[in-house]
């Protein structure tokens, strides 16, 4: 298990390095640099001075070496767009994305799994096809479209704020800040969570129906276990394996989805930062955001994989 973890951590660091370096080199070679917006307003000499200040006049190799040396000391350089240290920006934004993603994950689980258990049990009536129909529709509601529709709903009804993470300035008290964030959270979190919840519902429903047909459930019933207990205590645990597999996939979905949702609802997260940095050709910020993104992805994948290995001895053996 320890060797498995160490190997995975080394692989994760490799991924972070490759992602950040690729982003760095690609952005460096992209036409135009961080001064291209100021270009119109600056005299040629002033522009050269600005480029020298940002280190853009150095050759790629020297610039890359300097940046990599900084990275190893966890110094990500300074953002030309925000004129702030990249590390500081990344910390704030990563926390914001994490708040959004974890809320969405919890929401999806709370909404999806019970609904799936409900529809997976053999029963008659109209509710099951209804839930199923809603589910299939929601699965087809990508976060881009979903967030736009939710923003429209929020704006039209005036129930919820439509964008940003806070309305008040930072000076408010801790509790007020928390309430403010909680008010801003539902729109982006739901946009992310609804398709995931629907996917979970569909999968849980199928898995439970399948597990309920297994011989051990019949055996439990034959021993006199009530049909409810046979389902909840015997069939349901067996139906969890495919569900856990989905959680591994959902990390990536959440990550890409949160990018779109952040852009639509002006949630100050890492995805939004990435677009702004890319469009402004903010070299260090692009590389830093790529590193942070890769780090989040690797960590989340690592957690799900370790959980998997912990739950399933076969994976542990193979590793």
């Amino acid at each position: 298990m320890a060797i498995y973890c160490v190997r995975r951590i080394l692989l994760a660091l490799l991924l972070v390095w490759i992602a950040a370096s690729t982003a760095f080199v690609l952005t460096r070679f992209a036409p135009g640099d961080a001064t291209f917006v100021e270009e119109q307003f600056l005299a040629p000499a002033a522009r050269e001075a600005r480029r020298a200040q940002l280190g853009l006049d150095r050759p790629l190799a020297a610039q890359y070496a300097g940046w990599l040396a900084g990275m190893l000391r966890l110094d990500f350089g300074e953002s030309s767009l925000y004129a702030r240290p990249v590390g500081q920006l990344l910390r704030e934004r990563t926390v914001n994305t994490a708040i959004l993603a974890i809320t969405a994950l919890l929401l999806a689980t709370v909404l999806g799994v019970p609904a799936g258990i409900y529809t997976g049990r053999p029963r008659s009536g109209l509710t099951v096809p209804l839930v199923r129909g809603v589910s299939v529709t929601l699965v087809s509601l990508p976060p881009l479209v979903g967030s736009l529709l939710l923003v429209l709903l929020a704006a039209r009804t005036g129930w919820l704020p439509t964008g940003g993470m806070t309305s008040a300035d930072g000076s408010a008290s801790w509790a007020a800040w928390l309430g403010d964030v909680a008010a801003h959270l539902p729109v982006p979190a739901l946009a992310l969570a609804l398709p995931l919840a629907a996917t979970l519902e569909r999968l849980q429903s199928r898995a439970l129906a399948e597990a309920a047909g297994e011989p051990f459930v019949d055996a439990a019933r034959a021993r006199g276990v009530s049909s409810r207990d046979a389902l909840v205590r015997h069939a349901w645990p067996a139906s969890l394996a495919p569900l856990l597999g989905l959680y591994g996939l959902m990390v990536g979905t959440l990550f890409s989805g949160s990018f779109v949702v952040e852009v639509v609802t002006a949630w100050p997260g890492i995805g939004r930062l990435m677009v702004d940095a890319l469009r402004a050709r903010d070299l260090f910020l692009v590389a830093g955001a790529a590193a942070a993104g890769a780090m989040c992805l690797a960590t989340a994948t690592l957690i799900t994989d370790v959980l998997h290995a912990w739950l399933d001895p076969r994976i542990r053996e193979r590793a």
Partner: protein
Amino acid sequence: MRTRRAVLLLGTLAGAALLAPWLAPYDPSASFRGFRHAPPMPPRLSEGLQAHPLRRESLLDERFVEDRTRVVPLPWSRDRTEPVFLLGADASGRDVLSRLLAGTRVSLGLALVAVLGTTLVGSVLGAWAGAAGGRLDEVMMRTADFVLVLPVLYVVLVLRAAMPLVLPSAVVFTLMAGIFIAVGWPVVARGVRGIVARERDREYAVAARSLGAGTMRVLVRHLLPACGGHVAVQASLLLPAFVLAEATLSFVGLGFPATQPSWGTMLRDAADVNELTRFPWVLAPAFAIIAVTLTTNLALQPRTAERPLATDASPIAR
């Protein structure tokens, strides 16, 4: 049955895309002065499918009311006097329906081209790896695995941003198709490789080989048909993913230029909350996107019971 219905709907959309220049009532980039943000004008059944014309109540506020006393024929009619916007008009007074049709052409066209390219490249590489085996197989599948773990949306974003930000539409089209193929091929290739590697030692392949068929012939005539089902499912999962990727890229301003109507560039109007709230018909392309995803999901659902659905299994959404 469901598959047939899905093919029918997608076919209709593709047909609309092909015929867009003839179907569209107006030139998608023609702006009508004085009709900025004109609301949709639904045809009235009671009036023989004619619509009521709009009367401006306040030009400053962009408020319109229907003039119930008069009717005007639908925009395709020959004797049109004043413009009829079936789906409303956008911020520049351009007909949303015409733009939607023109956008279908671009967005769906791009997605279809990218899907075709991805299946082609993926099948060829996958079949090659599966047939060759050994070191080549190893290297190709490791590469595929690496591409698969990356969050593709970000990769597409960085790749696109590495190019000049403003490019002509035709260049953007080619570029995006290329990027989509570059990130999408492993999805197809992995499955094809697996099937080819498994089937190549089955009796029918061995029989063909012993009858003197060369490697190429065995691959093309005998092994590739075995991959048909897998390729078809992957291709139909990729279609909504690519549609969505285009919309997302254009939405954040890294796709098509704003003057080119596409589902993504049209949705950019909806990025402004005020605009979205007051003129919700700018969301029209969102429903086109939903139609594509929903169709795919409905078509694939019964056949692939254990497979996750389009928005999460698609490589782009990962």
